[in-house]
């Protein structure tokens, strides 16, 4: 079991992903940055908020499920970004792997908090 005073690995991990995503959004072309980019950034930050909340809360499950839903929404946003060539091949590769791993960890956390 995870000690309650230690920030979950997923949160730290996601923090890095958010940092990376915000940098990418900044380099979106101007016409994409404010509408599309804004939503990507918002979704990523929302997930971080939810993860922080979950880390310091007894009843985690509901918050984590919401985070999972946000993650799925973000996946679709980034799929669009990829198909519209807002990300380079290397960037797509990196973010796809990050999402897969974070998704797995989040799924695991949800399961662990179900009991």
């Amino acid at each position: 079991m995870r000690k309650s005073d230690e920030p979950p690995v997923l949160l730290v991990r996601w923090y890095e992903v958010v940092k990376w995503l915000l940098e990418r959004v900044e380099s979106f072309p101007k016409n994409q940055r404010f509408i599309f980019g804004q939503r990507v950034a918002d979704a990523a930050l929302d997930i971080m908020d939810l993860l922080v909340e979950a880390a310091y809360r007894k009843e985690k499950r509901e918050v984590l499920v919401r985070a999972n839903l946000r993650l799925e929404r973000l996946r679709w946003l980034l799929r669009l970004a990829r198909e519209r060539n807002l990300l380079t091949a290397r960037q797509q590769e990196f973010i796809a792997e990050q999402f897969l791993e974070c998704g797995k960890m989040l799924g695991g956390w949800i399961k662990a908090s179900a009991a």
Partner: protein
Amino acid sequence: MARSFGGLWERITSLENLFAAAEEAMQGKRRTGAAARYFARWEEECVRLRLALRDGSWRHGPYTYFTISDPKERVVAAATFRDRVAHHALVRVLEPLLDPTLVEDTFACRRGKGTHAAMARAREYARRYPYFLKCDIRKYFPSIPHAVLAAQVAGRVREATVRGMIGEILASHADAEEQVWPGDDCGFVNVEVEGGEGRSCGWFRLHSRAEGFTA
């Protein structure tokens, strides 16, 4: 000796190639069943496929068999969607290398070829020569011996990883079609044609069990 190629595995298993392969496999089918389900998990599936390919755990799945009767009766083997993505990933890299090495007069499964181009070519030849041979190799594709094909592939592809993937796909399906020609002892058919404009002579190796299959 034909050129052989290396450095293909890296290209085949790159996520960029897999994304594009998935896109090709979904071409025109995004709104339907299997492709739509795959679409919703696109990136995840591609990352998983890459991991499986790279650590050697990738296995080809089973086929769904069904029969069509137009234009003629034949059994179609449909692979699962994720296998089709793997096929595209392989072909995306191999096709541009191998296709130019094929003789110009082969028309099946090639870009810019097909039945109509084949007919145009046949017409052209029919006008040029006074005689022609009409022949069909019965169940040609199902009767290609896999061992011989694998050996020919090995001559063109250096990496064991790529050969392994091709081998896995080949092994996923086998038709027990064999070309047996009664009375065939030399494996060669000598076709001599004497026409109005002189004499043309050609050796056609149609079948040779001793030496394997070369067309």
